[in-house]
């Protein structure tokens, strides 16, 4: 009957006279340390990427130079980079606030799409007449986008808070519903001549762009950067204040770090779950509004449902859930996306994105542990 599995393990590790040991850090590293580690991780990632480029027959240095030029080389491409970064900024902010409370909102994509739909509703229902002023249109469309996004965040939030439904699954599924919902409207209700898109919005319902001012400042000719960027930056600053300076933000941080301590401190976790996912949805929805009214100017699925919600997850993590850092990281990601169109083989920028991400996430480990080389006799 006796089923003996392992022999007594008395064997000592052989080979090298030293071993590498990982030890948890007992002291907080200095404040510059995380930034240094992140920078080092990016350098390591670029080296790895360079090796891959080399073996696929390219010249790593020239490729990197090309990527840099294609996204930051002139004021024109810089503007394009920023246009690409704007939707990512919004979705990353949406993820930042949710992830702060350890609510894994994977539904920024759907909330973004619903935001675009909500803004379109203002124009196409029409809630406002086409000849209404731009300065009435913009706040109304913002409201429409945020409301639609918030509703899309409320559903998983409510299910999580009341019925303990896993928000990862429910928010993910809501993405598909959002796409189907928008498809219904652009096929059946707002279709332009049978195409899967709505008519173009009237000019009043466009967010102002830099090129609109080219008449007085010729330098701005052709620049498509739109008001969405400014809205995004303001949202990031407000979000920073909420997280670090407000009572509500304190509650969110406390719940995120230790829900039992939050409960002990008398904080209502149920209410905050719903609230945070609604705000998260509203931020993503605002992004959808910015994209549809600042960039696409009509509701259609192809350029709007482009995965910004998922990129936002990555950006939120890379910014260490800091809204201000998210502005910078979003622009870097905008650059990488733009570069993807410019260089061959086109897989390279995506791959570099991936390598950078893996290296950055892995580098986090070094903030918590340090590596020590120990002689065998010591151990």
């Amino acid at each position, binding site marked *: *009957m*006796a*089923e*003996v*599995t*392992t*022999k*007594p*393990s*008395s064997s000592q590790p052989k080979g090298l006279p030293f071993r590498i040991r990982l030890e948890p850090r*007992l*002291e*907080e590293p200095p404040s510059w340390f995380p930034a240094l580690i992140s920078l080092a991780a990016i350098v390591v990632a670029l080296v790895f990427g360079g090796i891959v480029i080399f073996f696929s027959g390219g010249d790593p240095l020239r490729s990197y130079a090309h990527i840099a030029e294609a996204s930051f080389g002139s004021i024109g491409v810089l503007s394009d980079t920023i246009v690409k970064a704007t939707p990512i900024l919004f979705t990353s902010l949406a993820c930042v606030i949710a992830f702060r409370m350890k609510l894994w909102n994977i539904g920024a994509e759907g909330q973004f799409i619903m935001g675009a739909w909500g803004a379109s509703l203002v124009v196409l229902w029409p809630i406002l007449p086409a000849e209404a002023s731009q300065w009435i249109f913009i706040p109304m469309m913002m409201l429409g986008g945020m409301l639609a996004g918030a509703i899309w965040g409320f559903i998983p939030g409510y299910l999580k808070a009341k019925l303990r439904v896993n928000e990862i699954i429910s928010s993910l599924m809501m993405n598909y519903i959002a796409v189907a919902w928008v498809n219904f409207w652009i096929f059946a209700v707002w279709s332009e001549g049978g195409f899967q898109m709505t008519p173009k919005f009237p000019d009043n319902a466009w967010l102002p762009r830099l090129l609109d001012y080219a008449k007085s400042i010729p330098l701005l000719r052709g620049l498509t950067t739109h008001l969405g960027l400014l809205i995004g930056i303001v949202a990031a600053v407000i979000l920073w*204040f909420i997280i*670090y*300076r*407000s*009572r*509500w933000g*304190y509650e969110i*941080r*406390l719940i995120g*770090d*230790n829900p*039992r*301590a*939050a*409960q*002990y*401190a*008398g*904080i*209502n976790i149920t209410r905050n779950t719903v609230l945070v996912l609604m705000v998260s949805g509203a931020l993503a929805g605002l992004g959808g509004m910015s994209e549809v009214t600042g960039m696409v100017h009509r509701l259609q699925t192809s350029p709007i449902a482009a995965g910004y919600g998922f990129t936002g997850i990555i950006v939120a993590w890379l910014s260490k859930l800091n809204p201000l850092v998210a502005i910078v990281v979003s622009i870097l990601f905008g650059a990488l996306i733009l570069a993807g169109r410019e260089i061959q083989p086109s897989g390279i920028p995506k791959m570099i994105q991936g390598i950078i991400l893996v290296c950055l996430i892995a580098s986090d480990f070094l903030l918590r542990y340090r590596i020590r080389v120990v002689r065998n006799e010591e151990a």
Partner: protein
Amino acid sequence: MSEQPNAATLSSPNAPVVVEMRNIVKRFPGVLANDHVDFDLRRGEVHALLGENGAGKSTLMNVLAGLYRQESGIILVNGKQVHFSSPSDAIHSGIGMVHQHFMLVPTQSVTENILLGLNKPRYLMRLPDYDKIIQDLGERFGLKVDPRAKIWQLSVGEQQRVELLKMLYRGAEVLIMDEPTAVLAPTEIDSLFNTLRSMLREGKSVIFISHKLQEVMAIADRVTVLSKGKVTAAGIPTQQTSRQELARLMVGRDVVFQIDKKPQEPGEVVLSVEDVYADNDKGLPALQGVSFEVRAGEIVGLAGVAGNGQSELAQVVAGMRLCNQGCVKLNGEVICNKSALYGIQRGLAYIPEDRTLVGSAPNLSVTDNVIMKAYRKKPIAQGWMIDMGTARHFAQDLKDAYEIIVPNVETPVRLLSGGNLQRVILAREISGKPALMIAVQPTRGLDVGAIEGVHHLLLAQRDAGAAILLISEELEELLGMSDRTLVMYEGRIMGEVRETDLETIGLMMTGTPLDQIQGREGVKNG
């Protein structure tokens, strides 16, 4: 549970010794958990290991089961010295441990759990064959459980049987049971004891870790008592001892602490707990009709071995656990089954048992941790904002006043030592000038200096007129600090003592109500 003639008949004093532990020393940071402990086990006997929480029972057995390695001392199995570096080494020598917290995969079947980690079967699981083997094994030892059932479908008692089967299947000759009855209902305890007896008949031996006297008397042949890491009674036959004697050996003899305490006339009733019933996390009754009062300016101690409902009581009062029946009043106002916030706003402070899991947010700064209850009020709250400058000053002041040793108030509290973290929590709770303070194990794991600091802080609160409910397993601390002490056992208050009669407290802690003890003495005297 019946105190029927126990299994002593199965083993004789001449039975061969299967396990011998000599001079075992095991140290943890700041604690000497086992101080030159000797222990031996004969074939076919139940040897009980008795002691309070933290006496070193589990540590000693974890050494024997290969989970810890002793710093010095030797272990002999069947007369041969052994060195265990992992639990699988121990099971190879025939020693298996059933832990208090089961290590089972809930979604897998009984057979799968038993086979987990074994080399055979290697590629194909051939579960039906093994189901049969497990079933036969179970029948042999009176361990009835369906091998095909999934773990989550089983009751706690059945899960324990699976753990036992797991060890028997691996060929264990010596079974270590770590507080096996703590999780069981009374009827399940009886069937566990029957199982143990049938295992003894097959020549197995059992080490039974417990702090419940009547169980030890019912099942064990011999008993070794540990107190603060030292053996106070080595392998005495249960027939030659009494519950009184064991109780005294368990809690120790001498009160070391003498705490200076000003006499103070207690004031108005602040906390009144009226016939409270509540369940524990597993849904079993934890409180069964608890009633008492705490007045302003007095410390009421609550003694008892861990797991007798003290934590649940604290949680009910703090508004973090529902009470099924009865009510809790703070200054005459019902506070139970409201939110935790409701109590906080009415002057309730709570020092939870678990500093890191409940009492603090480890990755947030000292500042963020000390404003956990004050952030709703001015001057830290400014409308919907938090005035971080004021908050930092507040934290700085507390850091100085409570001598929290930390580089600066922006340091995350996970980097603080236990004593410092406890000071952070105490500083936070006391700074709210509470009417009622519940302190659960406020000095657990602290060094002597830190313990003294905590005691002074609590006494200062008492002198300032706060009502304090002190829950602790440290009897000396309780008796030194408290104006009166209640003893709790299985969710009931066994009685109240004012003077330090350790034997009486020991008996109450192990389940004898005070009136029975006094009744018996009355009979003796009369």
